[in-house]
C-alpha cells in the first residue's frame, strides 16, 4: 500500500499545533504505517515534494510566509489549516489594530529592555505585510482544525477522516477557539 504523503509548514505561530499533534501519543505509530511525512518542521526537510495533504500552522504575516504557503498550496491536493492562527489569524493578528511601523517601532526600539535599538532591514529579511491574515485569505484552504492549540483528539480525528477519503469538518463538541 502506498503511503499518503503529508507536508506541514509552520508560519507565524508558536508551534503549539505541531506539539499538540505529537500529543496523539501512541496513535502516531498506527499513523506512521499509513502516512509519510515529507517536509515538516519536525523532519527538517526543506524542499517541497508533491504531496497529497498539506498542513499549515500559523498565520501569514510577512512576504516569506506568503510565498511558502503559496508553494505548499501548489504542491498539495488538499490543504488543511491547524489552529486559530491559520484559521482566523489568532494571537499574531493582534498587531492588526496597529500600523506596521508602530509595531516595528514598539518591538525593536521602544521595548523596555532595548538599548539603542533599530529596526533591522538588511536585504533578505522578509518584509512584514500590512496585516496578518489567516491562511484562507491568501490561498484556498480545504479544511480546518481550529483551537489554540487544537486538541490532539481533534487533529487525529481530522487526519483519520482524510485517510478515510472524507474532507473533515469538526463536530461541534470538538470545536475550540482557545
Amino acid at each position, binding site marked *: 500500500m502506498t503511503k499518503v504523503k503529508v507536508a506541514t509548514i509552520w508560519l507565524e505561530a508558536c508551534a503549539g499545533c505541531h506539539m499538540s499533534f505529537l500529543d496523539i501519543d501512541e496513535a502516531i505509530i498506527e499513523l506512521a504505517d499509513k502516512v509519510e511525512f515529507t517536509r515538516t518542521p519536525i523532519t527538517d526537510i526543506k524542499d517541497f515534494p508533491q504531496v497529497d495533504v498539506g498542513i499549515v500552522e500559523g498565520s501569514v504575516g510577512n512576504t516569506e510566509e506568503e510565498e511558502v504557503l503559496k508553494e505548499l498550496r501548489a504542491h498539495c491536493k488538499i490543504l488543511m489549516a491547524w489552529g486559530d492562527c491559520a484559521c482566523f489569524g489568532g494571537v499574531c493578528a493582534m498587531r*492588526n489594530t496597529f500600523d506596521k511601523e508602530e509595531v516595528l517601532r514598539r518591538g525593536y526600539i521602544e521595548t523596555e529592555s532595548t538599548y539603542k535599538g533599530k529596526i533591522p532591514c538588511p536585504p533578505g529579511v522578509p518584509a512584514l505585510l500590512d496585516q496578518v491574515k489567516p491562511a*484562507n485569505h491568501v490561498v484556498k484552504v480545504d479544511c480546518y482544525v481550529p483551537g489554540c492549540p487544537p486538541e490532539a483528539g481533534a487533529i487525529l480525528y481530522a487526519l483519520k477522516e482524510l485517510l478515510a477519503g472524507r474532507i473533515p469538518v469538526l463536530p461541534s*463538541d470538538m470545536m475550540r477557539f482557545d
Partner: protein
Amino acid sequence: MKEITLTVNGKQVKGKEGDTVLEVCEANNIHIPTLCHLKGLTDVGACRMCVVDIEKERRPVPACTYPARDGLVVQTHNEKLEKYRRLILELMFTERNHLCAQCVASGDCELQSLAYEYQMDNVRYPYSWPALPVDSVNDYLVIDHNRCILCGRCIRTCDEIVGVHALDFGHRGWKDMVIADLNQPLGTSSCISCGACFQACPTGAIFSKNSAYKGKPQECQKVNTICPICGIGCEIEALVKDNRLVRIDSPDITGKRGILCDKGRFALLSRKDERVKSALVRNGRGKLEPQPLSKAIDTVANKLARLKAQYGSNGIAGIASSQASTNSLKAFKELIAGTIGSDLIDTLDGDTYRTIIKGINGPRAQGGLDIETSLEEILKADCIIVVGANPLGSHPVAGSYIARAVRGNKAKLIIIDPAQNAFPYHATLWLKPKEGTEQLAVNVLSKAVIEKSTKKDSARTKEVAASLKDINVKQNSKRAGIDSDDLLEAADMLSKAKHNIIVYGEGVLQHKNPGLITSLLNLATIVSSQDKERPQIISLKPKGNSRGAWDIGIANSSQSIIKNLTSNNIKALYLLLSDDYVDASELPNLSTGLEFIVIQSSYLSSATSKADVVLPSPIWTEVGEEYTTLDGIAKLTSPLVKSSDDIKADAEILREISQQMKK
C-alpha cells in the same frame, strides 16, 4: 389570554395571543439560536440569529420580534436559514476583534458557543480590525469594545431592569458603540456599578475586574444564597472554586429581587480590609497578641464574671452592630441580658429605631414596624415621594426600583430633601425645605392634599386633618422655604395618583425627630389608596439586619448606650461588630473609664486596637445564618466558603462565654 395554534416545522404547537414566535417556540422546546434576546427584556431583533421562515413572508424574519398568530406556518431550521446564521456569525467575528484565546469570557461566551454550534471553523470575509478603546475607569467593570457585538443587552438591562439608563448606543452605523452617558468613561458616568450589564453581556465585552481569569463558570460550584449587606435581601448565585469566591451573580437578573448592586456583587471581592485571623488578647506589655480561641474565651468569661461580681450586672454593657445576623444577635442578647443580666444592651443604630418607633407609635399607637409596606410596592407605584434619602447610594436596589417605576410606569417622583442626591434628574419635582423645617413641609403638603381631595374622607383622613387644622398652606410653605405653587403641584400629583408610596431614609432619621416620622406616616395615610391595608411607607434602615436586630428587642433601651458610656458607671463593654467595619471615630468615648473592652469583629480597625480582647468573627459568606430584610422578611443565607479553623460563628463563641460564666 386567547390560545393560538401555530405550525412549527410541520408540527402543531400552542401559544398565547401576544407571544412572539420565539416565545411560542421556547415554550414548546423548539430551540432557536439567539444572541440579542434576553428573557425579561424588550426584544429588538438586532442580531438576526433567530431568523425563521414564515409562510407568505418574502424573506426570513426575526422570531424574537415577530408576533405569533393563529395559523402561522413557521420553519425554524432549514439549509438556507442555517447558512444565514453562520454568515451572521462570520460577520460578527470580522466586525470587531474577537480573539477567543485572549478573551476573559472564552468558555462562557454565547457568541463562541454559537460559533461552535454552527461549526464556524473559518471566516470567509475580510476582517475589519478596528482600533477600539477599552474603558477600565470604573472600579469594578471593564468595557472592552473589541468584544462587543452591539446586541444592546447591556443597554436594555440598564434601562429596563436597573432603571438607570447610563448606557446607550452612540455614534452612527459603522462607528456605532455602547457609550455611557454622553460618551464618557463608565467610572465617571451616572453608572451605579451594579454589574447587571456585565451579567447580561453575552460576550467578554463587559467584564468584572475581580472575577476575571479566576475560574470559568463550568469549573465552579454554584451556591444560591441571600445578600445580607443592606437589608434588601437580594438573591444571589455565587460561583466558588477551590474555597475561593470567584463571582457573584443574580440567579435571574430580570426576576424578583433579581438585580444586585455594587456592594453585593463586587465590593466583597475587592475588599482589602485586614481580617481578624485569630483571637487577640492584650498581654502584660499592653500589646494585643494572638491566642488560641478557647483561651481567649476563658479570659473573657472569667473577666466578665469578676466584673459582674464587683460592679453588678449593669457594670457591663453590650452593644451590637445591626450588621450581625439574627443568630449572632440572639446569642448576644442571651449573654448580655440573660447570663450577665445587664439592662444596658443596645445596637449601634438604636437611636434610629427609637426615632422610628416613637414616630409610629406616638400619637395614634399603631403596630410598630409591621405597618411598613413591602419593597415591591415601589415597582407598582405611579407616584413616589423620596424623603431625605439617597437610595441609589445607600440601598441601590431600592433606588433602582424607584428609577424603574419612573421609567416604566411613568411614575411621578417627588423629592423632599434640602440636600442634593442622586435622583434630581429622575425627579418630577424637587421640594427643598429649609434645614430643620422638613416636618413643617411634610405637614403643609398633607394639608394641601386634604384641601384638594374630593374623595370621601375616611376615618383615618379625618383624624389626620384634625391634627393639621392649624396649618395654612400658603403661609407655612413660605416658612418652610418652598414655593407654594410647587407644593400645590405635588399635592395635585399625589391626589391624582392611584398608588402613592413614601420612601424615607438617613436624611430623615439623622434628625432623631419622631414628629417628622409621624408627619410622614400621616401623609402616607391620606395618600395611600383605600384598598391598601397599610399606609404605603417604607424606611431605608441603616444596616443589613437592622430590622432583625430591632425585632428581637435588642434596641429597646430608652437611650443610646454608646453615647452615654461615661455617664452610666459602665466598667466593661462587649462590642459585637461581626462583619461590619466600624471605625473608632464611630464609637465615641470607647476607652474612657472602661476597665475591659471585648470586640468581636471580622476586621481589624482603629476600634479593635482599643480592645483588651478581640474575638474573630466570620464574614457572611462563611456562615449560614438568618437575616431580616428591611421590610421584615426573615431569610437564610448559605455558607459559600469555609473560614479558617480559628474562626467560629459569633453565636457559638457567645454561647461558650455564657456557659463558662454560668459554671
